[in-house]
């Protein structure tokens, strides 16, 4: 894999866009990590929120002694702080769910390829079932069944996303099993677990890894959509999506800042992840067609 990356890097000089989107993405992640330090307000602490300053336009000075740079929402929460804390939730939810979904999907896909027969049939039937429905619908059904809560959202996203990894991993693993080193491994009577863990899995990871950034982007959008539909995070812990959703009702009255700025942050986050993901994919998997 290392060789693969090096080869790819040698062949194509890094585009400026990679560095730019990479820097933006890194800033987002950093902001999310240090949100409690940099945010002027903790929007989750009712004692720090001043209800009488609800719906203040950007640039208002608040009783907390700081400037509401991007205004406040309908309850008096500082939008800048909401964005920073919302980034934390969005990233935490999406990265966790993408990682677990990738793990489950890879394991399922590789197992299906290696064991074949009924294992393959059962797993691939399940995958087909899921891929024959739009992910938004699966996430919707899952969250409705599971109930609200951040942990439930993560679970719903895993349920919605594992199948994509499984199908990819299976197809890669299938082509690997046909290669000569597999015959060698089988001839050497290596234990099954060793074959899967040391040979099949590592070789299937590279293509799957290219899928992860795209799926993280999807997960962020899905979480935001579920929260937007009122099926997501708790009301006193707003994510980016639910902040935008809360702002929708104020949109018509000209209080645009409640949904505009968090929405821009959400868009920037997904866009930078997608851009980085695209470059990553070109490097790791030069044969793939850009889609």
């Amino acid at each position, binding site marked *: 894999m290392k060789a693969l990356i090096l080869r790819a890097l040698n062949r194509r000089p890094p585009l400026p*866009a990679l560095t730019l989107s990479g820097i933006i993405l890194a800033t987002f992640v950093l902001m999310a990590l240090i949100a409690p330090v940099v945010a002027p307000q903790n929007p989750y602490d009712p004692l720090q929120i001043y209800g009488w300053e609800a719906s203040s336009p950007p640039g208002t000075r608040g009783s907390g002694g700081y400037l509401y740079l991007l205004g406040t929402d309908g309850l008096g929460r500082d939008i800048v702080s909401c964005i920073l804390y919302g980034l934390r939730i969005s990233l935490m939810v999406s990265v966790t769910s993408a990682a677990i979904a990738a793990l489950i999907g890879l394991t399922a896909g590789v197992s299906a390829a290696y064991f074949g027969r009924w294992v393959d049939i059962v797993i691939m*039937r399940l995958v*087909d*079932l899921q891929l*024959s*429905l*739009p992910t*938004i*619908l699966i996430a*919707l*059904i899952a969250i*409705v*069944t599971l*109930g609200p809560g951040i942990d439930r959202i993560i679970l719903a996203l895993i349920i919605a996303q594992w199948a994509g990894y499984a199908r990819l991993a299976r197809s890669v693993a299938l082509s690997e099993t046909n290669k000569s080193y597999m015959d060698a491994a089988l001839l050497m009577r290596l234990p099954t677990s060793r074959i899967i863990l040391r040979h099949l899995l590592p070789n299937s990871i590279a293509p799957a890894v290219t899928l992860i950034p795209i799926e993280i*982007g999807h997960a962020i*959008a899905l979480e*935001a*959509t579920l929260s*937007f*539909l*009122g099926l997501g995070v708790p009301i006193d812990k707003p994510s980016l*999506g639910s902040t*935008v*959703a809360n*702002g*929708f009702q104020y*949109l*018509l009255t*000209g209080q*645009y800042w409640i*949904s*505009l700025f968090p*929405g821009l942050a*959400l*868009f920037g986050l*997904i*866009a930078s*992840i*997608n*851009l980085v993901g*695209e470059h990553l994919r070109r490097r790791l998997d030069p044969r793939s*067609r*850009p*889609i």
Partner: protein
Amino acid sequence: MALISAALGRLGQALLLLIAMSLIGFIGIHSIGNPVFNIVNIETATPEDIQRATVALGLDQPIWRQYLLFVGSVVHGNFGTSYIYHLPALQLVMSKLPATLELACMAMLIAAPAGTGVGLLAGRRKGTRLDRTILKSSVFALSLPSFWLSMMLILIGAILTGWFPSGGRGATARVMGQEWSVLTLDGLWHMALPVLALAIPNIALIARLARAGTIEVESLDFTRFCRAKGLSPRRILLRHTLPNISMPIVTIIGLQFGGMLAFAVVVESIFSWPGVGKLLIDSIQLLDRPVVMATLTFISVVFVALNAFVDLFHAVLDPRVRLPS
């Protein structure tokens, strides 16, 4: 014969999907809460009212029995009666279908040619600044969460400029026993923003596919041969490039059309467009189980049918499809 067995397999898979969906949906709705509380006026109801309502809806039965009763009546084409609207659930879904259909069709009618055109342009000028701009914009367009895109369209197209209405369906005309907005100017006016919200991500997606396809086709020997033969670029484009890239585009149009029905959930709620997606969300929130089940089943059937249609299209038109992919 292989076609028949494939079709049978498809059918079995679709049935399996429907059974799984119905079970999950049924138990899911059941586990959320009791729909009775949405039916009686809880601010004035007595415990007897609630009890009477529970019995009248058959909700006093054990859940497995309710499910069997449900399956039994579905076999006869009856999804039950909406708790809220007191209309047959399937009829209710069908009455909302034209609104969703016209939205999705219109969005696709815009997205398909626009996306193909932009993609062709980018592909034929591969590596130029135009190509890079198109490619980058498509990433941005695909990064827009659909609900935020819809809200920004309202902000710009309705609130700031006042050019378009912010929601609702507008005037409709009655054709074939259904109400259609496409047939009135006012209806088209109302459709503009939601159609854009559905079309924009699809333009980007189709453009990327068309671009990739064009690059691949143009690098093939026969295109070079055509060019060497002195065929006009226009002729190469129309007779060779376009037919060769149409396959993946038709595929994605088919798949995305189903996706639109699902994503209409978001767009329709924001634009309060009275379609199937909005019905689904409203019914989930009101726990109107017969309607939720009818809607989910309907969307699944459409999705499966579209998938099958796309595959069939491939099998008929593309001889290579029988080769292992």
